[in-house]
């Protein structure tokens, strides 16, 4: 479903990725972990088509992603990917509901259908009460739940989350992770979570561990400890596929 082959990327004199390779299957929930500066966010941005690697290949559903031009990549991202950032990154001038509706409209959905989808996702994430409020009026936990609703409303095939609970206390974080993972599994979407928090990584079927820009463990489902599957199976067995 998603694949990176020997990616290289530097920022100035800092090497962020130094030959990172990884394979992620459809419907898998994976955690990308590693110390600060190990390249985990850069890997996520490459996989999501937000930045281009200097060398190596990124494939989504068998197609090269890194060689597409800006427009084609934007379209592919909008149609297939949902992204949740650490600080929500909602548009401050818009209400919570408008924030969820906007990408749906951009994606070509009708006004009515978009509004309906937005409302049902806000409801599901228990932030329907905040629909009319602007981001500045929301708590950190509410912001992230709106951001999750925005990422999921377009029914993406892959959800990327970069430290989605990084700004939250432990109970609010637990709630966001529970909803994110639950919704991804329900819709059979692939979920890639970048985190430095082991308790967040424990929601995933597999850990992709990075160190110095390389993947040191969990590059494929077979090497990642637990096989993809239902959370129950993954938890009970801990068996490799």
């Amino acid at each position, binding site marked *: 479903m998603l694949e990176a082959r020997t990616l290289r990327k530097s920022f100035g004199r800092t090497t962020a990725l130094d030959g990172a390779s990884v394979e992620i299957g459809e419907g898998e929930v994976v955690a990308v972990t590693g110390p600060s500066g190990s390249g985990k966010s850069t890997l996520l941005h490459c996989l999501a088509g937000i930045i281009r690697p200097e060398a190596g290949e990124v494939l989504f559903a068998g197609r090269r992603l890194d060689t597409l031009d800006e427009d084609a990549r934007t379209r592919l991202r909008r149609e297939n990917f949902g992204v949740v950032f650490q600080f929500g990154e909602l548009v401050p001038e818009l209400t919570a509901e408008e924030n969820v509706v906007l990408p749906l409209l951009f994606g070509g959905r009708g006004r009515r259908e978009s509004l309906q989808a937005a409302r049902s996702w806000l409801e599901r994430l228990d932030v329907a009460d905040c629909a009319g409020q602007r981001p500045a009026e929301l708590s950190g936990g509410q912001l992230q739940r709106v951001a999750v609703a925005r990422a999921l409303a377009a029914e993406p095939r892959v959800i990327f989350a970069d430290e989605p609970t990084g700004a939250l206390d432990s109970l609010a974080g637990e709630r966001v992770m529970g909803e994110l993972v639950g919704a991804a599994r329900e819709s059979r979407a692939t979920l890639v979570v970048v985190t430095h928090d082991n308790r967040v990584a424990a*929601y*995933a079927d597999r850990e992709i561990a990075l160190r110095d820009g390389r993947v040191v463990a969990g590059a494929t489902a077979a090497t990642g400890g*637990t096989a993809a599957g239902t*959370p129950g199976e993954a*938890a009970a067995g801990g068996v490799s596929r």
Partner: protein
Amino acid sequence: MSIGHVLLGLLSERPKHGYELKKEHDQRLPGAKPLAYGQVYATLQRLERDGFTEVTGTAQEGGPERTVHAITEAGRTELDRWLAEIEAPAPYVASPLFARVVVATLAGGTAEEYLLRQRAAHLTRMRELTARKASGSPAQVLAADYALQHLDADLRWIETALERHTVLKGETDA
């Protein structure tokens, strides 16, 4: 932790028999190691000897006849004393994890490979606990939280150890 004090706590609700105490202990402390019957009866004997509990009669609910135990005034005082105490923060680093890393370095080998495998094992256990939390009772969730945060502390120590490892190796090589 003292099993005696936990039993006194359970008896502070009402008099109970040994089988009931075992069942309730395991239910209310779901993450703890289940009590063996022998342990329950030995503890009850000690509590009675010390005057903290007394036998108030027998109960029979379809099964065998069972001795019912009740907490005494002295027992309540002892329970209050225990609850008012704090648990002393551990004075020694007693983790086998720590010992393995130091010994591995002393033996001239590398602890790195061990630490990575230990990390994988800890994370697998954390996945099980996280999955269990989704459908657990409030007590089970609390027990899982406790276990998760302790495993997480180990993992964070492992990460620091991995980062310091080159430093450690340099020290023993010198």
